[in-house]
C-alpha cells in the first residue's frame, strides 16, 4: 500500500489510552455511568431511590399489619393519639391504624402516581417537542405558542382544575400532574434539539445524503434526550410532592382505605398541637424521597453534561 508507507505510519500521533483489557470503546452513556459511580451524591440519591422503590414493591412483606386497619380506634381519644410502643413502632394515626404500615403503603401510592404522571408528562412533552424541534417553521411557532399558554398557568392550578373536572380518581390525579409537566418537557426537548441541529454533525449527515427524517430521529433526537431524562428524574420528586399537595387540597384519591402521604398530612392538621408526630413522619418521608430523586437527577445532569466531562 502506498498509503501506509514509512513516512506516515498508521498511528503516529497520540496513543490510545484504553482501559486495560477493554477492547470495546465506551459510549457516552457508559461514560456517564462511570462518572455517576464516582459521585457520592449520586450514590446517596440512588440508595434512597432504590430503597423507596423496594419499600413500595415489597410493602405487604415489610408492613407489620394490614393497611387501613382501624382496629385500635378505641385507643384514640379526642385529645391524644397513642405514641410509639413495642406493638406499634411509630405509634398509631388518628384513625387508629398503625403508622408504620400506613407510611409503607403510602410509598407504594407515591411511586405509582409519580412514575405514571411523569411518564404522561414526558411522553406528551416529547411528542410536542419533537414536532416543534423536528419539523420547525410554522409547526414550531404553533406548538410553542400553545406551550407558552400552558406554561403561563401555574402548574398546581392546572393540576387542580384537571383534577376538579375529571373527578376524584387516581387516574385523574396522574393526568393532572402529568399534564402540568407537558409544556416543560416540550420546551426542554425543543431547545435541546435546536441546539443539536446547529452542530456540524447534522450538517455532515445532510451532506452524506441522509433523509431529513432519519437525521432528526436517529441523530438529533438521541443527542437531545439527556436534559429530558434528567428533568424526568427531577419531576418525579416534584410529582410526589404535588400528589401530597393535591391530597392536602382535598383533591386526592377519594378512597380512604388507600394510604397516602399527602392525606396523612391533611389529617394531622387538627392534631398538630398535641401530636406533631402525625405530620412530621409523612413529611419526612416526602422530603427524603424527593431529596433522593433530586440528588440522583442532579448527579445525572452533571454526568451527562459534556462540559463537566474530564
Amino acid at each position: 500500500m502506498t498509503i501506509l508507507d514509512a513516512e506516515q505510519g498508521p498511528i503516529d500521533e497520540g496513543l490510545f489510552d484504553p482501559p486495560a483489557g477493554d477492547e470495546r470503546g465506551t459510549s457516552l452513556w457508559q461514560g456517564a455511568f462511570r462518572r455517576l459511580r464516582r459521585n457520592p451524591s449520586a450514590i446517596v440519591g440512588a440508595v434512597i431511590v432504590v430503597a423507596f422503590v423496594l419499600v413500595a414493591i415489597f410493602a405487604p412483606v415489610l408492613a407489620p399489619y394490614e393497611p387501613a386497619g382501624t382496629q385500635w380506634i378505641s385507643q384514640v381519644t379526642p385529645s391524644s393519639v397513642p405514641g410509639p410502643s413495642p406493638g406499634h413502632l411509630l405509634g398509631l394515626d388518628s384513625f387508629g391504624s398503625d403508622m408504620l404500615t400506613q407510611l409503607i403503603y403510602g410509598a407504594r401510592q407515591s411511586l405509582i402516581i409519580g412514575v405514571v404522571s411523569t411518564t404522561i408528562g414526558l411522553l406528551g412533552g416529547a411528542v410536542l417537542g419533537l414536532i416543534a424541534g423536528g419539523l420547525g417553521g410554522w409547526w414550531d411557532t404553533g406548538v410553542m405558542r400553545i406551550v407558552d399558554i400552558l406554561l403561563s398557568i401555574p402548574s398546581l392550578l392546572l393540576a387542580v382544575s384537571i383534577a376538579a373536572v375529571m373527578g376524584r380518581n387516581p387516574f385523574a390525579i396522574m393526568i393532572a400532574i402529568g399534564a402540568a409537566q407537558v409544556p416543560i418537557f416540550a420546551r426542554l426537548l425543543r431547545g435541546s434539539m435546536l441546539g443539536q441541529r446547529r452542530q456540524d454533525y447534522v450538517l455532515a449527515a445532510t451532506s452524506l445524503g441522509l433523509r431529513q427524517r432519519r437525521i432528526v430521529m436517529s441523530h438529533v433526537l438521541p443527542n437531545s434526550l439527556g436534559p429530558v431524562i434528567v428533568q424526568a428524574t427531577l419531576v418525579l420528586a416534584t410529582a410526589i410532592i404535588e400528589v401530597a399537595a393535591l391530597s392536602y387540597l382535598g383533591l386526592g384519591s377519594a378512597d380512604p382505605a388507600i394510604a397516602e402521604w399527602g392525606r396523612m398530612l391533611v389529617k394531622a392538621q387538627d392534631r398538630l398541637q398535641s401530636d406533631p408526630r402525625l405530620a412530621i413522619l409523612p413529611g419526612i418521608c416526602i422530603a427524603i424521597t424527593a431529596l433522593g430523586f433530586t440528588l440522583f437527577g442532579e448527579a445525572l445532569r452533571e454526568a451527562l453534561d459534556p462540559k463537566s466531562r474530564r
Partner: protein
Amino acid sequence: MTEGADKVAGEPAKLLEVTGLEVHFPIRRGVVIDRTVGHVRAVDGVDLSVGRGQTFGLVGESGCGKSTLGRAILRLEQPTAGRVVFDGQDVASLKAEPLRRLRRRMQMVFQDPLSSLNPRQSVESLLTEPLRVHGLSAEDLQTYGKDSARAHAAKAAAMLEVVGLPGSSMSRYPHEFSGGQRQRVGIARAIVLNPDLVIADEPVSALDVSVQAQVINLLEDLQKLLGLTYLVIAHDLAVVRHISDTVGVMYLGRLAEVASSDDLYERPLHPYTIALMSAIPIPDPEIEDARERILLPGDLPSPANPPSGCRFHTRCPFRQPTRCHDEEPELREIPDLAAGRQVACHWASEIASGAVGVAEPELLVEPTSS
C-alpha cells in the same frame, strides 16, 4: 504532483463549474413581525472551475465567505443566485431527491472533527451509515459482494486502513480519539462512498501543528489513490500552497485573484495577494528582518455593506484616485501580463510594472535597521 498537467493536456474536463454564485443572508429586525432590513453578502458573485483530479485552494481571511462558498457548492446553504454545475448537472437548482442521491458523489471534510462526528456513533456506525443510505457503489459491489451489513463493514474496515487507523478503532467512539485520528475518521467517512469531489473546509486548522502535515499528506495520497478532486478551504497560506494546483484568493465575498499555486506565490498580482504574501514569515531571522512587509489598515469591511467600486479600495495600499472607488473590477485575464491567471484589479499591469507604487509610505514596514 499534477501541476502543469492541464497545460500539457490542454483544457481538461471540468468537474465543477461555478458561475455567478451568490449567497446573501437576510438581516431581520422587528419584535413581532420580522422585516428584512438588509443582506449580508457572504458570497457575492464567484466564478470558479475545478478540473477532474485537480485541487483548488481557496484562501482568505476569516469572514470573507470562503466557508459559505464551500457549503453553497454542496448546497448545504441555499445559493441566492448563480449556477453550480457538477459533472453537467446544476446542483443549485436540483430538486431534493435527485440532490440527495447526487450527494454520494460530493463529500465534505469539516474543520472540527469532534463536532462533525455524532458523539453517540461508534466509528463502525459512522462509516457504514452512508453505505446504508446509498448502498455500495458499482465497483465496490464487485469487491465486497451484495449490499449487506457484512459487506458494509468490510468496506468500512478497508477505508479505516486506507486512512491509517487500526482495525480496533471500529468499536470506539469519537471522543476516544486524538484530534488527528478524529480527522482521519472524518476523512474515511467522506471517502467511503467513493465520491468524485471532496470539499475540505479548513481540514487541518483545528489540529496540532505536528499533525497537520500528516493529514495533508493523507489527503494527497488519497487523491492519487482514488482520483479525487479537491476544493480545499484554508487560511493557512503554506497549507494551500502545498496542496493546491490552482489557488483562489477571496476577499469579502469575491475572488480577487486566481492563479496556479506556484505563479501566485512567486508573483502575486492583486494588491491584496501582495499584502498577504508579504505577511508570510520567512524562517530565517536575517532575511525576515530584511524583507518589506505591507500592513493593511483597518478591518475587513462589513459584508452587509461592501465598499463601492473595488471592494478592497478602502484598505488597498496601491489605491488610485480614479476607478478604484467607483468601478468594480472584473476578474479578468491580462494576456500580455500573465497568461492563464485571473486578477480583479484595474491597475494590475501598472502595479506589476512598478508604474504604480504604494500610495502611503507609512503602510510599508521598512526592513528593521537596528
